[in-house]
């Protein structure tokens, strides 16, 4: 699992690469929290899932936890390029209600 980021027009693009399950959730969580803490020049986060080859419901907790932290700073999260399975998981858990998919 790898996390790459890019800042563009005050949008922080987060590219998740690999398979997100319980075994790497702590790594992704810490990585994103440090990133959000240290990078101050963004007003929204775009989670790019195009290279996320796998995600199970562990991803819900990871996303929701980051959402809550950013909510305090009024920074929204948007989702782009989910796989079919990720899409279903986002829909059934209601995550899209709080972090909409954009294209």
């Amino acid at each position, binding site marked *: 699992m790898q996390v790459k980021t890019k800042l563009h027009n005050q949008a922080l693009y987060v590219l998740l690469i690999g*398979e997100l399950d319980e*075994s790497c959730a702590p790594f992704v969580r810490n990585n994103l929290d440090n990133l959000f803490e240290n990078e101050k020049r963004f007003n929204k986060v775009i989670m790019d899932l195009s290279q996320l080859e*796998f995600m*199970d*419901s562990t991803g*819900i907790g990871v996303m929701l936890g980051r959402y809550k932290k950013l909510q305090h700073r009024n920074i929204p999260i948007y989702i782009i390029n989910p*796989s079919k399975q990720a899409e*279903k*998981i986002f829909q059934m858990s209601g995550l899209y209600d709080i972090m909409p998919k954009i294209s």
Partner: protein
Amino acid sequence: MKNQIEIKFKSLPENEAFARTCVAAFCLQFNPTLDEIGDIKTAVSEAVTNCVVHAYPNKVGEIVMLLRREQDKLHIVIKDNGVGIADIEQAMSPFYTTKPEEERSGMGFTVMDSFMDSLIVKHNGNKGLIVEMSKRIENKQAV
């Protein structure tokens, strides 16, 4: 046609990916779509994660995964000898989790249920849990 394999592995987080890869490999004989493989891998990942996180919270235990093919149907059984669940019905309800502080979503069983055709969860004697899932995989090969 009938075919079956049984695999026993330790409840280590790295074996979640191992179990997903095994089931994907077993599924190849069905000539499945990528979408079907994705659904099945996700369901298996949920069941194995439950064993790693909940069945054996403070130790490493054993997980048994049985994969069976009956014609166009895939049956998956995942068994543990862990702490078990007193109220299975409650555990299966969406968003129910005993570990919210660990950012667990409580959606594992809901995901298994919606990604597979059937899901049955029962007690493994008085130790642990048995999760049975099945999915029909249509043969798309020309006849």
